[in-house]
């Protein structure tokens, strides 16, 4: 039996048996783990409201020999998503972080940079501010997972992209200059012309913003105005990169799309 005392974020929980809960937990020291909270529904004393997804906690838990699930002993809340007002948009942003981490994080593999990213965006996600943290998270997680192409040059010819529009497509890795963009015909990444292309444009402004995002903490960007239209193309680019590698649509990206900002 090894006892742990570590910072963690609750990702999801499922009820089992009468009153127990299985919790998927992103811990700082062990990465993503699953644990069982015995009679959590009844025992307010040990868990309180701390089992709500995206709650940032200090967790005590115990690894048990030959057991896949750790035993969760107690959670102390550092920050709860319920401490600030909630609406559908904020709920969708929080669920977006959870869905991506649930789908991509390997079990029992510490990921300190991703953990710090999550804490940073959770802190900035408010009812009047969801698009900055969603954009910031989508772009950074794509990079930290190793799925982000070089944003500075065309993936086919290496031409510098800064300062002009570039192109991307759900089916291909990379960013492309106009000549090599999907659907541009002979010489393009798909070698095809015209109508069938689903290529999308990434504006010069959004590309410049991406460069800034990789140099700036989230807390420094939150004071800027982020209407849903800002960098929607950049979010779509990051979400498409994630979905291409996951080989499925993200349910929460659909929710964000319906809110008009993905």
């Amino acid at each position, binding site marked *: 039996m090894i006892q742990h005392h570590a910072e963690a974020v609750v990702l*999801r929980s499922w009820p089992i*048996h009468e009153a127990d809960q299985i919790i998927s937990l992103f811990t700082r020291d062990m990465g993503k783990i699953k644990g069982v909270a015995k009679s959590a529904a009844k025992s*307010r004393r040990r868990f309180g409201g701390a089992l709500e997804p995206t709650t940032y906690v200090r967790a005590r838990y115990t690894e048990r020999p030959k057991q896949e699930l750790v035993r969760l002993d107690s959670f102390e809340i550092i920050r709860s998503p319920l401490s600030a007002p909630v609406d559908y948009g*904020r709920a969708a942003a*929080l669920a977006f972080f959870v869905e991506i981490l649930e789908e991509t994080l390997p079990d029992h593999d510490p990921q300190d940079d991703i953990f710090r990213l999550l804490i940073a965006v959770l802190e900035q996600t408010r009812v009047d501010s969801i698009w900055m943290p969603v954009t910031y998270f989508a772009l950074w997680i794509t990079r930290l997972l190793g799925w982000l192409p070089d944003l500075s040059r065309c993936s086919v010819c290496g031409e510098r992209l800064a300062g002009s529009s570039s192109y991307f497509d759900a089916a291909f890795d990379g960013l492309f200059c106009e000549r090599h963009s999907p659907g541009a015909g002979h010489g393009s990444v798909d070698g095809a012309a015209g109508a069938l292309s689903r290529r999308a444009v990434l504006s010069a402004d959004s590309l410049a913003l991406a460069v800034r995002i990789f140099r700036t903490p989230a807390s420094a960007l939150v004071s800027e105005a982020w209407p849903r239209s800002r960098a929607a193309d950049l979010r779509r680019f990051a979400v498409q990169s994630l979905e291409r590698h996951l080989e499925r649509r993200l349910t929460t990206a659909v929710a964000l799309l319906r809110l008009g900002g993905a």
Partner: protein
Amino acid sequence: MSQFAEPMDRLIEALRKLPGIGAKTAQRLAFYILRSSAAEAEELADAVRQLKARLRLCSSCNNITDIDPCVYCSSATRSRRSICVVEEPGNIAVIEKTRSYNGLYHVLHGALSPLNGVGPEDLRAGSLVGRVQRGGVEEVILATNPTVEGEATAVYLAGLLHSLPIRVTRIATGVPAGSDIEYADEVTLARAMEGRRDI
């Protein structure tokens, strides 16, 4: 190749789909049913069949009922001036047990859940607005769960009802009765402070 005869396998598979039932429990239940009398087994099968055949949603409040409108909506003694909105039909029984509410209900059958693909258009909210617009309602009580999804749902419904001339309230949350505030987490305690009242 299964270790059981086909009818046994079929029952075990069906039972395994029930929430909280694993392979072992499903087997145990199946063997129990096999050993019970034909009358007992028929009683169980008939209860399952009748449940699906006779129960439907109340056309007014979406509660699960065998008569339409349901017992609450058709009751002569309940107040029609308030509607209590809940996520699940099972929540009604819990509120009824308190004996502190004598109005009508509205069942959403879920809450807004981006992770499960449930958006505003999937909630049974339009019929709630319709009920209020038909008049006579003075208060809508939003009794969705005090979770992120339940809060988001309450805020969304409050927005829908905003322009109507009624009072919209949210149930208070706080420290459980009979417990010790020493063990309440900060969020619960903060809400209890917000929801305090004069005595």
